[in-house]
């Protein structure tokens, strides 16, 4: 009943096309992330789904109903903003009660539902506080409670964690996942942070310049990037054009334009290629070496016991079995 489908969606930002011919499905109860750098069209897409932006073409279907032209205030879609967008003049309780009051929910039921929502996000004691007197993480939870209390058919979250500090972000990530599972709500999650998308999602949709570049489960997009763009986004730091890699590898993937290796896949100290250490940086669990080689610059991790100094020459291997074959979109 909360199945979202976007067909041939075209969106404009001002007069410039922001999203072109986007097709996307989100299953009932599924958590899908729209992942991409700023300007890729992910937030624009979310705003169109919310009804805050009229599409230039295409249709949006929610639970079998065409909502393309339905006003935003009649869509029953919960929205959580990057800035939280709490109503500064209303208490936590009244912020959460806002949508219910508009729906003319009776007082007793309203109290119960607001109480439940605040309990879900762990803010029961803060009901009387104004947003200005809450921490960033608490404001975030109020925004979430306010969106879920109306029992939306779909929950949209726009970079909800990006204003929190690193530790809190990790905590809230787990919380979001728990709440989504607990309520079974369908969720579309917009982020530019690949770790967040990997940790949270059932499925990740990677967007670039208004189009979908690749989609799949977190494991799929992480381990098997299809394009240099996705590989780069997923932390495949060594992306070499096909002309630079040894012949046998090229032959097994004739269509590939690039090959990529993660820094931890590069074997240092033995192999056919030699490079000079440009930088050696300590990263706690390992050392990172930046090498200048005939293949281009290569990043590799080594145990903290490794002794190569900056400026020294060493050999390395790019194991073919750990390469990702990429095709420029």
């Amino acid at each position: 009943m909360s199945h979202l489908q976007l067909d041939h969606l075209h969106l404009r930002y001002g007069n410039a096309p922001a999203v072109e011919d986007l097709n996307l499905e989100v299953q009932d109860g599924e958590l899908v992330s729209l992942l991409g750098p700023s300007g890729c069209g992910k937030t624009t897409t979310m705003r169109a789904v919310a009804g805050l932006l009229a599409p230039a073409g295409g249709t949006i279907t929610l639970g079998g109903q065409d909502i393309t032209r339905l006003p935003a205030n009649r869509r029953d879609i919960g929205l959580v903003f990057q800035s939280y967008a709490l109503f500064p003049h209303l208490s936590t309780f009244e912020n959460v009660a806002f949508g219910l009051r508009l729906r003319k929910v009776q007082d007793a039921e309203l109290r119960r539902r607001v109480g439940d929502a605040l309990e879900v996000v762990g803010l029961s004691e803060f009901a009387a506080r104004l947003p200005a007197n809450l921490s960033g993480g608490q404001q975030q939870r109020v925004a979430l409670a306010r969106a879920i209390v109306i029992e939306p058919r779909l929950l949209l979250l726009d970079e909800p964690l990006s204003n929190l500090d690193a530790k809190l972000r990790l905590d809230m990530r787990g919380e979001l996942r728990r709440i989504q599972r607990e309520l079974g709500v369908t969720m579309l999650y917009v982020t530019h942070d690949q770790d967040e998308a990997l940790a949270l999602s059932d499925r990740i949709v990677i967007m670039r310049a208004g189009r979908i570049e690749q989609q799949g489960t977190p494991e799929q997009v992480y381990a098997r990037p299809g394009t240099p763009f996705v590989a780069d986004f997923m932390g495949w730091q060594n992306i070499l054009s096909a002309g630079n890699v040894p012949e046998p590898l090229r032959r097994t993937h004739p269509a590939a334009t690039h090959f990529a290796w993660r820094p931890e896949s590069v074997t240092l100290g033995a192999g056919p290629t030699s490079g000079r250490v440009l930088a050696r940086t300590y990263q706690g669990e390992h050392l990172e070496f930046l090498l200048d080689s005939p293949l281009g610059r290569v990043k590799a991790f080594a145990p903290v016991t490794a002794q190569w100094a900056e400026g020294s020459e060493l050999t390395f291997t790019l194991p073919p079995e750990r390469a990702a074959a990429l095709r420029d979109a």
Partner: protein
Amino acid sequence: MNSSRVPIIILYLTLVFLVGPFLVVFIAAFGGEPTLKFPPTSFSTQWFTKVFEVESFRSSFLTSLGLGLMSTSLALALGIPVAYALSRFRLPGAVVIQTVLTSPALVPGLVVGLALLQYFINLGGSVYPSLLAAHTALLLPYVVRVVSTSLINLKPDIEEAAISLGASRLTAFRLVVLPNIRGGVAAAAVLAFITSFDQVAVSLFLTGPGVSTLPISMLTFMEYNYDPTIAALSTLLIIFSIGLVLVFERVLGLSRYV
């Protein structure tokens, strides 16, 4: 003298220059002589009593008060929607709209008054409506500017949040926007009222027998009377302004809006 003290000394001297003359008016208002003299040689409060006895002051004060309240309300009613539209929508021709709306602040008040005198009153229009219209036009740019400032500082996403929770745009404005721009609206109202209440240039041509505003009555009175009545009235007006400024600076931070 330490050279780093020079700026603050200049600041204090400037303040004396700006506010000092008011003290002189206060003192002159309590003089006992029948013509204005400074410093006065005797003490009297009779001029304060006289302010309230002069019929033209009484009637013009009521005119100015009513005119100020009405033109302020009208300017708010016309101006708040414009400020909202300009800050929340991308309008084709927004520059033209903005220019038209600021134009009453660019055209000298005397010219506005003269124009309305020639093309409204002289063609049979009545005085009070044209005064009201001229004052309202004059206040609109202030209202739009001050309210726009508050609206720009208020992120549009709280309206979108309200809409996503089921509010229409009008409901979102009433429940979410208006409560958060109260300060700006109140500041706009205070500034607008004072601008109307103190207005001379626009009113000069638009007052006549029967209808006069307080500042115009004061100017007329001064032509024929040399006693300190005007000093007493000025004292009252200055005290009123000081009170207003202090209260609103404390409550609203008026200086942010001037």
